[in-house]
């Protein structure tokens, strides 16, 4: 141990004492304090191999607590953040060593679950109250620009959230104006500082959207984001606020009043710039090309139509002329076809007529022959001979008397004239002549 140094000149206090010795006496002093029972809510519970650590907290303050893991396991309870408990024990102090840090804790020797956490119940009451006042709605009704020119960010200056926000904005290809409003984000100074930062950013008039980002933490760390004044301020802010402070399990009231609640600062940054700027530029170039095409077509198409229309009358005449020529050709062809068919028909008729003519001459010849024959027959017809004045001499028995001897022999004969027959008697002289 080094030599004891001189004390502070003018100080009436005892010492200086070696700090290790004092820390040891302090531990002994604290351990002599009365063992008591305390109640509050468990936050930031960490179960390690040897010990269990948590904060016992209520609305006015908190104590860091430590319990041996063996003692904790023997209780057989399931402990989680927000649980309301009664603990038994007393103050203790670990004086540290050359290489380890000292720390104060309330050494817990007994623990009992005491029902739902009051703090969580109070937060729930506040949440319901703000909801009933309609304060969850105004932020969500604010229009959020797709392409904000200026983004305000409220976050801790040294936190990882800052880098995450930048990464999210880079991912969107956004490179506008970024206004940092640094504020503590987890102690009792946090809520007023964040409230003021939000009000200042909104008052600038240039900020299009505000991101409130925190890298995470226990619900106890996030209590500042459940501050009633902060939440009321956000609800009535004219600029949309994107919150990225809570977790899926620990939802802060800021998450409820904000326009959008995101799980990570990166996501919040991407939500602040919904468009990917590079893609938006490509889309805009496409739009511009389409408009140019339409611009050219609007004139060219109509010019083509006009040209077509101007050619239309001549084409119309040409079309009709062509149609007339075609009709003429068809007429001529039809005429030729008609003549040919009539010629064929006439030839047929001529053949028929020729045949008929030939038949008539044969008939005439036959008639002449018949006439000739008839005349020849008539020449031999006795009736015709009688008509010329001749008479036919017949015997009584009807036989023809052809000689004077036969007439004399017959004595009585019949003379047949052409019109009638008369009987005659051959006289004696004739008979004897």
């Amino acid at each position, binding site marked *: 141990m080094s030599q004891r140094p001189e004390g502070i000149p003018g100080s009436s206090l005892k010492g200086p004492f070696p700090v290790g010795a004092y820390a040891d006496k302090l531990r002994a002093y604290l351990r002599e304090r009365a063992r008591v029972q305390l109640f509050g809510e468990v936050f930031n519970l960490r179960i390690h191999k040897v010990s269990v650590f948590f904060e016992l907290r209520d609305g006015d303050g908190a104590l860091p607590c430590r319990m041996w893991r063996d003692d904790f396991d023997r209780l057989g309870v399931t402990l989680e953040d927000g649980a309301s408990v009664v603990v038994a024990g007393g103050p203790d102090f670990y004086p540290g060593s050359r290489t380890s840090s000292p720390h104060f804790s309330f050494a817990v020797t007994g623990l009992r679950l005491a029902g739902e956490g009051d703090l969580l119940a109070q937060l729930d009451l506040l949440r319901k109250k703000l909801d009933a006042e309609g304060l969850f709605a105004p932020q969500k009704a604010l229009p959020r620009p797709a*392409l904000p020119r200026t983004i305000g960010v409220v976050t801790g200056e040294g936190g990882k959230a800052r880098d995450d926000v930048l990464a999210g904005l880079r991912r969107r290809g956004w490179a506008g104006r970024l206004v940092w*409003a640094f504020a503590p984000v987890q102690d009792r100074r946090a809520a007023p500082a964040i409230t003021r930062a939000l009000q200042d950013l909104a008052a600038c008039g240039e900020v299009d959207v505000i991101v409130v980002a925190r890298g995470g933490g226990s619900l106890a760390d996030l209590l500042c984001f459940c501050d009633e004044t902060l939440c009321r301020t956000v609800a009535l802010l004219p600029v949309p606020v994107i919150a990225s402070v809570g977790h899926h399990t620990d939802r802060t009231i800021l998450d409820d009043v904000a326009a959008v609640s995101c799980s990570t600062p990166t996501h919040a940054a991407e939500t602040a710039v919904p468009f990917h*700027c590079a893609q938006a530029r490509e889309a*805009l170039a496409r739009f*511009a090309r389409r408009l140019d095409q339409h611009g050219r077509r*609007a004139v060219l198409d109509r010019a083509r139509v006009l040209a077509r229309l101007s050619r239309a009358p001549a084409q119309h005449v040409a079309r009709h002329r062509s149609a007339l020529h075609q009709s003429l050709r068809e007429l001529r062809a039809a005429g030729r076809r008609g003549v040919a068919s009539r010629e064929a028909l006439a030839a047929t008729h001529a053949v028929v007529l020729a045949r008929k003519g030939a038949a008539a001459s044969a008939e005439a010849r036959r008639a002449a022959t018949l006439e000739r024959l008839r005349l020849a027959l008539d020449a031999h017809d006795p009736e015709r001979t009688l008509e010329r004045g001749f008479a036919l001499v017949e015997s009584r028995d009807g036989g023809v008397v052809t000689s004077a001897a036969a007439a004399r022999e017959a004595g009585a004969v019949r003379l047949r004239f052409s019109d009638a027959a008369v009987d005659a008697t051959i006289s004696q002289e004739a008979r004897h002549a």
Partner: protein
Amino acid sequence: MSDQQAIHTYETATARIEEIIRRLDSGEAGLRETLDLLREGRGLVEYCAAELEAVGQGLDELRLDELVARLEAGGR
């Protein structure tokens, strides 16, 4: 700020451009309407291009107190 900017945001402008292109694609617009739509569309494209240009020049980071001081000094 032009009248067009006063009326439009980036998303309403792009939505209107898409609407204009749909109308032109339909082929139902007459010549006068086509020319009016083209004039409006080109104006909106210029507006959107200016908006994109404003967030594409490089990240301009500043602290809130610097912005306040700049605004109080009347500068940008």
